[in-house]
Structures are given as structure tokens and as C-alpha cells.
């Protein structure tokens, strides 16, 4: 009896506040926009037959007619993909350096990587506004050095979005790679070097493959949230930066078109299912390998 109650409480909570809301989004994505408030046709009061008759794919068809949407999906995928690769390039040397650092430093280094994660995401993105703007710290520094003769425009461009994503998601990349490198047996590198590998070849042929699971986990942990990112493109990106999270937010709050916003959400979810399933499979394989 107690066991049933223990299972039922969190189960019922998640069903009501996680699963059912998705079904509602799905339903509304298939309904018409009505002028009444809330701006969609009523869903719960009709009979089942009326409900099915009322369903149509108009909103999804609409998404294909306006090229804003497919451009936004494509550019989100592109931005998420490139920024994941850049985060990997920046994060790997840091994780590698941490794994090579003396044992007594490692706990401190680990804390230094985790600390930004506890500070507000919004504030960490906002910090870059003052750095990247035309009169910002970076431009003043470059002008002072004499590297540029007039300020570079970085804020409100896609470049700023890349910087923002790399900066805020860097800990998610460092931690799994560090965990993989930390578990690695150093004598393998020595063996490779004894057998005639150069240090670089040993790194390429031994270290990289052994940290593969960490790399994969880190990449998914950056790619998946970056794809639906809203705060970074809105604060650092310009009007030319299209990302689907921002489009959804604006569709909902500025255009008040709830059915279309729901359809945008449904498609984003379908796109995300592939990387999420791949990520879970990687985690499972890793867990099995450890046993």
C-alpha cells in the first residue's frame, strides 16, 4: 500500500505537469486560431467527434509556406553545431590541463569550473554586453593596442552568439571530458611513447579515443540546450540572428499566435528527439562499460 503511494505521488505529479501539458501543446498546434481569448478554439468542452473534426494541419502547412521558420530551424542547427565544435576546441585543452595538474590542485580546479555554473546564467550572458559593445572593454583594449583603427561591431551579430554559447556552456563540456581523462591510465601513453610514438601521435591515437565517451557526452550537453536557446540570441544576437527559441518566444508573446507557437514547439521537439536518444544510448553504453 505504502509502495503504491510512494510511486503514485511523483508519478501523478509528472503526468499532470509534464506529460499532459505536452498533449495540450500538441492539440493546440492542430487547432485554429480564434479571435476570442485565449486565442485558440476551445478544446475541452466539445465532444470527441467535434474535437477530431476540428483538427487540421493548417499551422504546420503555414510553417512551410513562410520561409522564416525553416530558415530559423536551419540556422539554429548550424549555430548549435558550430558552437558545440568551438566549445570542444576550447574545452578539451582545459580538461586535459586539469587531468594533468598535480593531484592537490584538482579539487580547486574542479570547483573553479563548477562555480560559474551556480551563478546566474542571465548575468553571465549579460556580462558580455559590456565587453562586446562598440564602446565596450574589448574594443577599447584593441584600439589602445592599435590593432584596429575603429571599433569592431561584435555585439548584435552571430559572432557574439557563438561567444555567448561557448562561454556559458563551457563547464558542461569540460566536466565529462575531464572525468574521462581522469580515469585514463597514464602508463598507456608511456607504452605508446616507448613503442616509438611521438607525443603528438600518442595523444592522437591513445588519449583522444580513450576520452571519446566524454567528448560525446560533452557535445550533446552543449548541443541539445544550445538548439533551443533563447536568452543568448536575444541579448547578444542581432536582428540577423535567427534562432528557433527566440522565434517561438516572439510568436507567442508578440504575435500572440498560440497555435503557430505550439506547432513550432512540436517540430523543435521532433528535431530534438534524435540527439536526445543518441545521448541516452551513449550514457547507457558508458554505464555498461563501467560495470
Amino acid at each position: 500500500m505504502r509502495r503504491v503511494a510512494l510511486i503514485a505521488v511523483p508519478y501523478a505529479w509528472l503526468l499532470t505537469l509534464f506529460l499532459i501539458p505536452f498533449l495540450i501543446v500538441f492539440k493546440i498546434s492542430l487547432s485554429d486560431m480564434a479571435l476570442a481569448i485565449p486565442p485558440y478554439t476551445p478544446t475541452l468542452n466539445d465532444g470527441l467527434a467535434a474535437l477530431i473534426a476540428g483538427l487540421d494541419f493548417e499551422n504546420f502547412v503555414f510553417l512551410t509556406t513562410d520561409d522564416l521558420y525553416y530558415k530559423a530551424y536551419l540556422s539554429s542547427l548550424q549555430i548549435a553545431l558550430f558552437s558545440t565544435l568551438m566549445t570542444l576546441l576550447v574545452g578539451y585543452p582545459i580538461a586535459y590541463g586539469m587531468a594533468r595538474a598535480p593531484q592537490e590542485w584538482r579539487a580547486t580546479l574542479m570547483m573553479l569550473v563548477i562555480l560559474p555554473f551556480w551563478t546566474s546564467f542571465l548575468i553571465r550572458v549579460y556580462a558580455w554586453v559590456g565587453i562586446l559593445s562598440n564602446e565596450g572593454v574589448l574594443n577599447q583594449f584593441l584600439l589602445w593596442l592599435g590593432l584596429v583603427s575603429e571599433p569592431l561591431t561584435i555585439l548584435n551579430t552571430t559572432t557574439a552568439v557563438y561567444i555567448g554559447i561557448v562561454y556559458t556552456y563551457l563547464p558542461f563540456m569540460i566536466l565529462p571530458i575531464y572525468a574521462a581523462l581522469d580515469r585514463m591510465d597514464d602508463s598507456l601513453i608511456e607504452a605508446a611513447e616507448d613503442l616509438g610514438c611521438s607525443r603528438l601521435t600518442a595523444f592522437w591515437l591513445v588519449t583522444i579515443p580513450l576520452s571519446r565517451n566524454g567528448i560525446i557526452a560533452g557535445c550533446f550537453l552543449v548541443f541539445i540546450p544550445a538548439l533551443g536557446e533563447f536568452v543568448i540570441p536575444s541579448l547578444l544576437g542581432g536582428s540577423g540572428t535567427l534562432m528557433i527559441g527566440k522565434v517561438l518566444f516572439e510568436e507567442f508573446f508578440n504575435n500572440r499566435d498560440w497555435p503557430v507557437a505550439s506547432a513550432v514547439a512540436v517540430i523543435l521537439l521532433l528535431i530534438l528527439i534524435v540527439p536526445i536518444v543518441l545521448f541516452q544510448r551513449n550514457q547507457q553504453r558508458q554505464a555498461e562499460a563501467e560495470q
Partner: protein
Amino acid sequence: MKRLSWFNVTSLTLGFAFLYLPMVLLIIYSFNASKLVTVWAGFSTKWYGTLFQNEAFLDAAWVTLKVAVISSTFATVLGTMAAYVLVRSGRFWGRTLFSGMIYAPLVMPEVITGLSLLLLFISIGLDRGVMTIVLAHTTFSMCFVSVVVSSRLISFDRSLEEAALDLGCSAFDAFRLVTLPIIAPAVISGWLLAFTLSLDDLVIASFVSGPSSTTLPIKIWSAVRLGVSPEINALSTIMIGIVTVGVITASLVSKRNSLRMQREEQAAERPA
């Protein structure tokens, strides 16, 4: 043998400079007397003064704190229950769905979570306010709590619990007196994680908050959309300061605890 080559030193230095420089600059500029980023007009704490006179910020901070305390407490209870179910309950009807619902919110884009919860609240006619933010935050942070707690439960020696049951404890007492003290560190870090996630959330709160329940991130958001604001710099400095003190304290406490555990283990191993 570990060698820290010049390459490793450089990558660590540059990497941590990249992670910390933006925050350090934010802190420095919060003490700038000038409103502009361009000019350093001398040291001043006036923005902290105007911040603490700004009623709207103080109200928002109060709402945020209230939401964070309530939602992280609910999330900890529900998340611990969910972790217990995942690790201990074996097979039951709909287990796959249950674990899917625990893991999916961890990677769900916030815009989707926010939109779907808002549509739920509207279709059941619940007015938006503090209560809806609490419900939303509890739901996504309970999943984070249950992941943290279940990793501790997996490594837990079950025979301790069985011993308590054999010695006549009820199942609830065995949980309260044996299991809970052992998993307590994970439960506490789960609570802290839920608390931080709630303090931090902008997107979901934007969807489910009402006019009378503006949270601090929403307030910050509307201020920084217009560009750099010295009051927000001051507010950020305060928040970074609190987090830094908290994280350093927590790591010192956990270091001291693990040293004490080591000593106790050594003492126990020594023949009496």
C-alpha cells in the same frame, strides 16, 4: 608520471581567464561612478545605494526568494521519492514512462516547458501568479534532484536498511533513521541545485508568471535588454558574491567531512 608542460599551463591560464574575466569586469564596473562603460570616473558605491532604494527590485527579489524556497523544498521531497522509486521499486506498470518523464525535462528546451505549462494553467483556469511559478519550478527541478539522489542511492549498501528492518524498524523508520542520514548530502545538494535553478530561471517564469508576480530574473531581463545598466552590475556583484561564499564554504565543509571520515576509518581499522 604527471608532467605539467607549458602547453597545459597556458591552456589552464587562458581557459580560466576566459571563464572569470567577464565576471571580474562586471564587478569592477559596478563600482564605477559613471553610468557609461566607456569612462572610468572613479570608485563609487552609489549604484548599490540606488539598487537598495529601488522598491521594484526588492519586491521582485522577495518573490523570487519565496518561490525558490517553496519550490526547491517540494522538489526535494518529490525528487527523493522519485529517486527511491527508480532505484528500489523494481518493475511496475509504466516504469519506462516514469523514468522517461524524469530524464526528459533535464534536456527539454525551456521555451517548450514554459509554453506547455502555461497552456495547461490556462486550460484548467488557474490564475497566473506565485503559485503557478512554484508548480513549474517544482516540476523541472524535482527531476534534477532525483538524478542527484538516485546516484547516491545506487551506491548505498542495502544490507544496512535490511538490518534495521530485521531489528524491528518499520519501513518508514528504517528510511528515516538509516537511509536518510546516509543519503543526506545528496538530498542537500539536490535542494541547493533546485534552489539555484529556481533563482536563475527566466524563460519558464516569463511564461507562467502573472502581473503581480515578477521575479528577479524577469526584472533583470527587462533592464538589460536596453543595454548595460550600472544597477544591474551592482546586483550581479552581490549575487556572484553570495554564490562564491556559498560554494567555497560548501567545498570546505565537504573536505573537512571527508578528512574526518578518513580519520574515523583509520581509527576503526586499528586494533583496539
